[in-house]
């Protein structure tokens, strides 16, 4: 009899333990913390850890009911869609002071992307809950958008033809401006380059810093701080960084713009609207605006390149930023790129162009 009671108690304790382990493993602790957050900090931290572990359903369940959001919109905002950069990114988050300011750093194949936003946290009885308003994305009605922009194809010279057989020349490009500036810990070459030809060009700009005796110090290319594909008469800013080089060691700069004739498309056209220079939530100078894809094809990844000019019209800085959302046709998408404070004070004018990559075609 005594043994029977002992066995029953043992089974009951074992069952409770197993249930507890299962609860912990299924995120019960986090969920409990989330649903019983006693401070705004706890609420935001719990929400971010759920988003980080891609448990969007649990994260959405913890939001305040006044959020007026839905699971699909919330998941789309957090996880991304249409092959945008956010689709590729795991999230790392930490909370800022006063809990309402949140700085998220997204890791992407193209580097880290910063997102600073103010979130409201609301007390729900004894529990704090985050208010996450639904992202107001204009939804274009289903429609057929005709795309009839030009496309260039290239038929090159046949290798079996005789010496002297005619070929098509490479596009003619011209560096219209170049400015060498000294930045902390580096020398930077900024300027603009124009495709003067009537055919598209794939362009690379390289710079070689030279000493007083003409010997090279270092050679660098513009990498992604340029629009590599330039349509006829299109102008792109470029920036070439030379980390670890001091300006007083440089006597002259040798520039080299190399262009190749490549197949290209004039589509899509991306408008850049409402560009303004202002301060962001962290009091940094930023150039912000909206991108509008005027084509009928989604643009998966967009890169904003901005050139800044002083009073004399000289390029004094070039900055860039990737947009973590895909550009759907006709839907404005905000962007912001940093401007160094000393540049912002001398800034007189600026110009923005957009590089793009679409999943269907890289052209």
């Amino acid at each position, binding site marked *: 009899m005594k043994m029977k009671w002992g066995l029953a108690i043992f089974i009951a304790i074992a069952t409770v333990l197993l249930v507890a382990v299962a609860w912990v493993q299924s995120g019960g602790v986090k969920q409990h913390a989330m649903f019983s957050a006693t401070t705004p900090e706890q609420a935001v931290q719990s929400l971010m850890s759920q988003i980080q572990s891609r448990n969007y359903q649990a994260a959405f369940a913890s939001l305040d009911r006044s959020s007026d959001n839905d699971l699909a919109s919330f998941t789309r905002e957090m996880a991304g869609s249409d092959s945008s950069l956010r689709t590729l990114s795991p999230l790392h988050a930490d909370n800022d002071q006063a809990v309402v300011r949140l700085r998220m750093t997204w890791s992407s194949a193209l580097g880290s992307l910063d997102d600073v936003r103010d979130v409201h946290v609301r007390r729900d009885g004894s529990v704090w809950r985050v208010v996450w308003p639904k992202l107001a994305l204009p939804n274009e009605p289903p429609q057929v958008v005709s795309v009839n922009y030009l496309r260039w194809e290239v038929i090159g010279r046949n290798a079996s033809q005789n010496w002297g057989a005619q070929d098509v020349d490479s596009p003619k490009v011209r560096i219209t401006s170049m400015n060498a500036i000294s930045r902390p810990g580096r020398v930077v070459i900024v300027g603009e380059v124009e495709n003067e030809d009537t055919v598209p060009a794939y362009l690379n700009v390289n710079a070689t810093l030279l000493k007083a005796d003409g010997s090279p110090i270092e050679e660098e290319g513009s990498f992604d701080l340029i629009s590599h594909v330039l349509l006829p*008469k299109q102008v792109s800013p470029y920036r070439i960084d030379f980390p670890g080089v001091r300006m007083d060691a440089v006597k002259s700069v040798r520039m080299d713009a190399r262009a190749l004739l490549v197949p290209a498309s004039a589509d899509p*056209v991306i408008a850049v609207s409402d*560009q303004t220079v202002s301060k962001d939530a962290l009091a940094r100078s930023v150039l912000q605006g909206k991108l509008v894809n005027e084509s009928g094809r989604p643009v998966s990844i967009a890169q904003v390149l901005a050139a800044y000019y002083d009073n004399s019209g000289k390029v004094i800085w070039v900055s860039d930023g990737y947009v973590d959302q895909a550009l759907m046709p006709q839907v404005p998408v905000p962007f912001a790129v940093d401007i160094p404070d000393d540049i912002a004070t001398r800034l007189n004018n600026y110009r923005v162009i957009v590089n793009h990559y679409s999943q269907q075609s890289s052209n």
Partner: protein
Amino acid sequence: MQRTTLNYLAGYKVLAVCALLCVLPGLVAAADLQVPATVQAGQGFSISAEGSGQATFYLIGPDHVVKRTVNLGGDLQVQSSDVHAAGRYQIILCGSPCTSTSFEVKAAQPAHLSFFLHPSRVPVSTHDSIDATAFVFDQYFNLDLAAAAVDFRVTPASGAGFSRQVPARHGVSTIRMDSTQHEGPVHVTAALGKVEEARVVQQVAAEACGLRMKAFPGANNTIIVETDPVRDCSGNALPDGTVVSFTQVDKAGKSTVDTPIKKGIARAQLSVRGSAQITVACGVVLGNELALSGRL
């Protein structure tokens, strides 16, 4: 006959021939070999070899060497295939003693033109912008150094064509030309006798000139800005795909649209909020400016 090209000669054979060439001038007697002073490429000829018995015959040319055993006392035949390459040849006949002589093979009649026309695209009305260069070769692809005159015939898409004869210097004939005022293909033919080579250079519109735009209302508080047909200073239409930039500055900030020309015209749609200034540019060329005071 044993004919051996340099490609197949073993290294020691080449060295031996070179050594022979170095030593022979000291050994040979006065030239007993009678050869023409100049020979045209691809034309065989014979030389008389006095004496009797057998000797070794060497023909050393720019691109190959011939060695064979010959009987003295008759004519020695040099095959046409042995003198295809133009240049200096040396004949060495080694019996007892060795004798040698040399002769020049010159290019045959012009049979090929290698014609370079550069660039393949050129803006209209540009001075000295087209470079046409013809290299004159015979049928064996020897550069013909004789002073032949190459006839360059230029036929533009519109307007009268012209022709210019340019004597070749050292086998090369070259001219520089201005591009004409009208866009389109320009056919350039280099001709020498019955030999002709044709190329095409595409004349394209130059920079935009007198760029102008106009604006009219669009749907939903937008305006449509549209250029007049975009032309250069000679009146040629800039090709479709050329990028035109529209910039609007209003109270919301600056908005830009880089749009390609379609059917000769660039067009963009801009949102209007109050008064705005709109400018247009194509490359480094600025167009007119529009000032909107809230409505059109």
